[in-house]
């Protein structure tokens, strides 16, 4: 009976997936996605393999470094699965629109909890696991372990995913049951803060700067001791790494204590989640369903703020932006993302503040300017990621209310331009902030500051335009959660195009900039280096502005022709 109910729940998911991706996505798109994924995974494999081979050839500490790297990977995977499952289980177990329908059916609440729990873990882990495959394959190729390594690898990785997943579900169940009915949907606010703490702890726990800074230890033995000491030894991710590492070196045929601990923890956490579900899930579900109709008054402060922010825009455009701002700040799943953004900026800037530049054997000015240039790329990638989360879905977020805009005299062109400028202003300010603060930490010279600032403004222009363009070309007006939009095909293509653009612009400017540095330190006497740099910046400007206008235009045309919403 339970099996039949679980089967039905999985069937709903399977069929929705097939209908969404296999029936409505055309084959060309599917093949393109498959090839691109394969290429990306292959690149990760090659990169990891190079790192591992380099570590392996390093005497004394190479093996420790490889193990530490594996520990970091598993720690990050474990952390991501916990947080991600908190999010997906909140959606699947408490917020999803079909819960009323399912709850009204004779399906048992236990089956609903287990079935939706497994679906939540799958949702939160499949992509993480996909990226884990090339990393672990690199270990396999580099160390050539025996067959039992692969058996343990699959078994233990699966256990870790389930432990992380069920931990996430338990946290969600406890949070929901602890909150009053009207606040259940505000759980995401708390989640934002939890995620901030997880990011911070993960980062500080790993202390990556220490790995490349042996001078901070009193002697070699101290450094080796740091490398070999298991950080976060009480976490399952560390147990899994211990077992795998023994297995890689051929000594893991018997079941060890960390392995037993992993299996027992999984069993314990599963049983705990079932007990909790019996006592708390029904209560939480009722709360969540009741909380749907809660009353909430509109805020005057938000009204005032949104009017101030939209002053520079024409009336019709301004009205759209006022609406967008209000919708953003009234939706807890939206504004809480700003907390994550805060965490990201903090970690990013912190990275630059702890860089041990003065201990580098390379010339200080050369290193500073090179890092500043790399920083340009990193900032652009952050803007690109933010574009995927905030800019790309801005068209889809009109949702099924898009009929109002489409039937109003406000043209699609005006709508798209309003959204473009609004996001461009915010993201260009943010990119400049990130770049300037990190450049100040790097103490770069004035010319590099001007060059990187100009380039990042141009790149932000193109990135925002590409995000809006693809958002118009692949809008999803009917969605259960915004995750459906930001993980869709259009978002994937957007990330691909914006990444290519960033790399292309950096490559164009890198050569002339390098010539200037080399000339500056007296190694070369090449003439016309400044002219070359100006030409390269002009080329970058043409590419960014040209591609920006191209994708905006394409997006407008595409959105004008969309009739199904």
């Amino acid at each position, binding site marked *: 009976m339970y099996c039949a109910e679980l089967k039905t729940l999985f069937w709903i998911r399977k069929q929705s997936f097939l209908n969404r991706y296999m029936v409505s996505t055309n084959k060309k798109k599917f093949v393109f996605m498959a090839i691109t994924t394969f290429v990306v995974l292959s690149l990760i494999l090659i990169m990891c393999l190079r790192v591992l081979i380099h570590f392996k050839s390093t005497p004394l500490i190479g093996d420790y470094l490889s193990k530490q790297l594996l520990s970091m990977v598993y720690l990050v995977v474990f952390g991501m699965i916990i947080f991600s499952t908190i999010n997906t289980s909140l959606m699947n177990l408490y917020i999803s629109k079909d819960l009323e329908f399912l709850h009204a059916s004779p399906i048992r609440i236990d089956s609903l909890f287990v079935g939706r729990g497994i679906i939540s873990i799958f949702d939160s882990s499949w992509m993480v696991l996909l990226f884990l495959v090339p990393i672990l394959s690199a270990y396999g190729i580099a160390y050539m372990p025996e067959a039992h390594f692969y058996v343990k690898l699959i078994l233990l990785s699966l256990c870790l995913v389930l432990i992380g997943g069920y931990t996430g579900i338990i946290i969600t169940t406890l949070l929901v049951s602890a909150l009053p009915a009207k606040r259940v949907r505000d759980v995401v606010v708390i989640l934002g803060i939890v995620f901030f703490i997880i990011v911070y702890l993960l980062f500080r726990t790993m202390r990556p700067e220490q790995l490349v800074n042996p001078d901070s230890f009193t002697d070699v033995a101290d450094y080796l001791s740091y490398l070999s000491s298991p950080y976060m030894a009480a976490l399952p991710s560390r147990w899994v790494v211990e077992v795998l590492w023994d297995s890689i070196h051929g000594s893991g045929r018997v079941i060890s204590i960390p392995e037993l601990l992993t299996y027992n923890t999984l069993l314990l956490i599963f049983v705990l989640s079932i007990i909790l579900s019996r006592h708390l899930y029904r209560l939480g579900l009722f709360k969540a369903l009741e909380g749907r*109709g*809660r*009353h*909430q*008054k*509109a805020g005057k402060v938000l009204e005032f703020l949104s009017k101030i922010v939209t002053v520079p825009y024409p*009336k*019709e455009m*301004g*009205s*759209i932006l*006022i*609406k967008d701002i*209000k*919708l953003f700040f*009234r*939706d807890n799943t939206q504004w809480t993302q700003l907390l994550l953004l805060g965490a990201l900026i903090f970690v990013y800037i912190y990275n630059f503040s702890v860089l041990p530049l003065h201990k580098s054997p390379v010339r200080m000015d050369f290193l500073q300017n090179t890092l500043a240039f790399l920083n340009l790329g990193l900032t652009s990638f952050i803007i690109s990621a933010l574009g995927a989360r905030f800019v790309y879905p801005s068209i889809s977020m009109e*949702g*099924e*209310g898009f*009929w*109002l*805009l*489409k*039937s*109003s*005299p*406000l*043209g699609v062109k005006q709508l798209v331009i309003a959204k473009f400028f609004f996001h461009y202003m915010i993201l260009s300010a943010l990119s400049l902030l990130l770049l300037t603060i990190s450049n100040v930490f790097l103490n770069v010279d004035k010319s590099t500051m001007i060059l990187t600032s100009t380039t990042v403004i141009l790149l932000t222009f193109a990135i925002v335009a590409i995000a809006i363009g693809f958002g118009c070309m692949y809008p999803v007006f009917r969605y259960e959660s915004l995750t459906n939009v930001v993980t869709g095909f259009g978002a994937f293509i957007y990330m691909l195009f914006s990444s290519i653009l960033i790399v292309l612009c950096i490559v164009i400017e890198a050569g002339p900039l390098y010539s200037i540095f080399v000339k500056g330190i007296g190694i070369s006497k090449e003439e016309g280096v400044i002219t070359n740099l100006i030409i390269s910046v002009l080329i970058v400007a043409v590419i960014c502005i040209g591609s920006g206008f191209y994708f905006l235009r394409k997006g407008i045309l595409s959105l004008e*022709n969309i*009739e199904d919403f």
Partner: protein
Amino acid sequence: MIELDSVTKRFSSVVAVDDLTLKLKAGTLFGFLGPNGAGKTTTIKMLVGIMKPTRGRIEVLGMDISKRSQEVKRCLGYIPDRPYLYEKLTGAEFISLTLRLYGIREEVSLKERIDYYLELFSLAEWKDELIENYSHGMKQRLIVTSVLIRDPKIIIVDEPMVGLDPIAVRMVKDIFRDLVKKGKTIFMSTHSVYLAEEICSEIGLIHKGRLVLKDKTEEIMKSFKEMKSLEDIFIKLTLG
């Protein structure tokens, strides 16, 4: 006022609207009847500029909608069948948004008008609540209110009474009759033959994308003397 000339709409191999020709004068309350999937909503979406016809021409107030869509839209009021709104806006904010979208200033006289309609549709107390707290019927009433406030020359309405309580239904009927008396044109799609028979001055029947009947209501009743009601005529023409 409204003219559709050989309008066809295809969705890959499916023909949703097939060679539809229709002409409506000002001051008409036109009932657009048809069974499920006949092409009523598709026709309406083409009329309000949400969809483009595969073939044919649509003119509203003498303007070709494909060429002067913004001007046409400014004169139209559209009430869709499903009241999808921005759930995190309040009712008052939604009205304000629609007015701004249509380039209308919120002057004192308009504010009185807003209050009048909000009161009329029992939304005054709810105007500062988020739309997500509204019932289906309240959302429908809010859309009707937002359109009536603008006082458009033409109202295009898709299944207007779905979700409305009897009091609101009576109110909408009275308002529509009153508007038509003042020279406005209403294009109303509906499943309800009783509603069409009761309030429409002209009726069109669409079946499998083709217009199979179009005339004044009393003329239709005269032409089908053997039939007791419009419902019988509807069933005869759609079931054969």
